[in-house]
């Protein structure tokens, strides 16, 4: 019962002007446009202010990760892959190491798994904070992004204390972590998370409670769940349509099954729901970090890993819950220490492929609200 996707080229008849011949104007939004996050270009044909047809054009940030990965060994790969979805460095590295560990049956110490969960959730918070701020920016409110970045700096300080980097960490190694956390990290992380939870009501009042914001987002860009599943949409966008697909719950990896947290679900799947799910997820991540910090076991930061890491022949698919959706690595190895082929299934690629259907019939300013609420990172789309 998958809906047959209407042929994009057929033009729905919107010319309510009867006899008067109106000709559409093709508008070229991007590739360098202040609203889109980076270089996404949308070819829009517009009848007055209403969009008749929209076709996202991607590839402006295609850097060929899948080809470069075949020339690098696994430590170099974790560094390169954290540059794909540049807002969630740690979450990009985890599935790569998980794939290697599952193939070699490496046993990762509990402390390393706990620390991986803490770092992943802190990174998820910084990712969501960025989108909380920039969604307001696109609707014209320049102040929430400033507050969001103030919280983000504090959490980045904690991450930098541990890994040395602010955005690209290269800290997750097959078998565990690069080093152990220094003294003072636990307090700094706890303080950062506590300040975040204290400041979330600011965002709710400043944005979600604001009537103008509600008029701009409620009922705008409604995503039909069947279409979403058809396109492989995942992450907060899918959960905003009411489908509880969260890999940390459905197929728990690391030690996520030891923490109790719930997945917020939206009702209508419109821009407001997506934003609401995003903000609630930050609260959930904060809960996970608090529980993980309390229960941080003692032990070593890395298991017993052979010096020269060579993988047996074989194929494996390993996925994890990236802040933007399901990030999966299909690793094909031919016995060397470099992957023969690594297919990277990124969330934003599938999430944006559904945008063409959602933009049809919307207003031009709505297009910005819809694209802003689709939470994508162009590096993730173009790989």
């Amino acid at each position, binding site marked *: 019962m998958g809906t047959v996707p209407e042929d994009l080229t057929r033009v729905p008849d919107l010319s309510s002007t009867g006899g008067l011949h109106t000709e559409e104007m093709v508008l070229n939004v991007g590739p360098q446009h202040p609203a889109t996050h980076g270089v996404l270009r949308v070819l829009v044909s517009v009848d007055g*202010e209403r969009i008749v047809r929209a076709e996202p054009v991607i590839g402006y940030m295609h850097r060929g990760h899948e080809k470069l990965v075949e020339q690098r060994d696994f430590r170099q790969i974790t560094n390169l892959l954290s540059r794909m979805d540049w807002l969630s460095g740690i979450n990009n590295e985890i599935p790569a190491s998980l794939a290697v560990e599952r193939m070699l049956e490496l046993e990762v110490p509990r402390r390393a798994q706990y620390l991986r969960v803490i770092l992943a959730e802190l990174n998820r918070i910084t990712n969501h904070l960025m989108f909380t701020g920039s969604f307001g920016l696109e*609707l*014209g409110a*320049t102040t929430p992004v400033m507050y969001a970045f103030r919280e983000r700096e504090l959490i980045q300080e904690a991450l930098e204390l541990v890994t040395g980097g602010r955005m690209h960490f290269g800290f997750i190694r097959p078998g565990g972590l690069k080093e152990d956390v220094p003294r003072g990290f636990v307090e700094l992380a706890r303080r950062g998370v506590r300040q975040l939870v204290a400041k979330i009501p600011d965002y709710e009042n400043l944005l979600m409670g604001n009537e*103008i*914001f509600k*008029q*701009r987002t409620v009922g705008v860009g409604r995503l039909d769940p069947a279409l979403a599943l058809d396109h492989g949409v995942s992450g907060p966008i899918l959960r905003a349509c009411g489908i509880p697909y969260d890999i940390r719950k459905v197929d728990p990896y690391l030690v996520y099954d030891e923490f109790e947290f719930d997945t917020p679900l939206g009702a209508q799947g419109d821009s407001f729901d997506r934003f609401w799910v995003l903000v609630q997820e930050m609260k959930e991540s904060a809960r996970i970090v608090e529980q993980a910090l309390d229960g941080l076991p003692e032990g070593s930061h890395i298991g017993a890993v052979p010096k020269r890491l060579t993988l047996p022949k074989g194929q494996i698919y390993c996925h994890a819950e990236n802040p933007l959706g399901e990030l999966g690595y299909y690793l094909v190895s031919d016995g060397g220490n470099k992957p023969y082929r690594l297919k990277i299934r990124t969330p934003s690629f599938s999430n944006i492929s559904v945008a063409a259907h959602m933009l049809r019939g919307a207003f031009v300013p709505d297009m910005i609200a819809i694209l802003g609420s689709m939470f994508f990172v162009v590096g993730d789309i173009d790989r």
Partner: protein
Amino acid sequence: MVTTLHHILANSIVLLALKLGILLLLLPATLVVGYVELKVMAHMQHRLGPMYAGAYHGWAQTLADGLKFIQKEDIMAAATDRTVFSMVPYITMLGAALTFVVIPFSRHGVIANLDIGLFYALAVSSISVIGVLAAGWASANKYSLMGGLRAAAQLIAYELPLVLAAAAVAMQAGSLSLVSIAEAQRYVPFALWAQPLGFLIFLAAATAEVSRTPFDMPVAEAEIITGAFTEYSAMKFAFGLFAAEYIAMIGMSALAATLFLGGYVPLLPQLRFVPGPVWFLIKTGLLIFLLIWIRWTFPRLREDQLQKFAWKVLIPLSLVNIFVTGALKLAHWT
């Protein structure tokens, strides 16, 4: 015949030249308001704003901006309609600056105390609509065209509530001359007792007139770059959009201060020793701060919501306001 100073002053041409000098004061005023907006916006966003331009707290930031815009290269794309393109800054500046002709700084400190001052002020402020529309058309750029059309639709939609709210004030004060309107509010401004609704309507319409958030769809960065002024650079941009917008903002807040807060009239009889112009500056400054405050807090409305707000909410409300004022006047209550 001894030509004393008095004679020279009484001579109408010299007097007029002196008074027009006041208009020249507007340019430094835009620099001051621009700087205040940068600093207030920064502190509202929990940061510091310009610090290094001009040493102490970056006071010379907008002066540096102005000087820099003079040095910039003035680009006109080949497809632009040159004459109209260059005329636009003058029109928008004209529309914004001429409202000050009738605004009283004190009992006699007004350039021309027209007895239809209010009517003149509102008529002149709608000239800038033509400027924005011309900019949209002349810069031969799709975004500018959309920006221009949006601006025209918005300004026309908000002209009506502006005029109706002002009409209620004229009814209340019984005259169109701004000086007598101000005098009628001796010691008790209209906003407090007679026209609270009118004050809110006028402020909302004024914000839309100046196209500032939440009504700044015509210059929405996210959707259509800088709207009608995308193609403008250097002094045309600085003069036509930047300075004209600030002068219009000052003009509108001065008008609102005069109509609803009593302009140069002291708020309390006891405070009479404070001279008129100081009162006027305090009230206008307050309203300017309010506009800045609103701009950096709210997101912007979509185009059709904007129009719906004007036609379905503001205009009926202002008609009700006029009806109520009329009824109260009849009952000799006020």
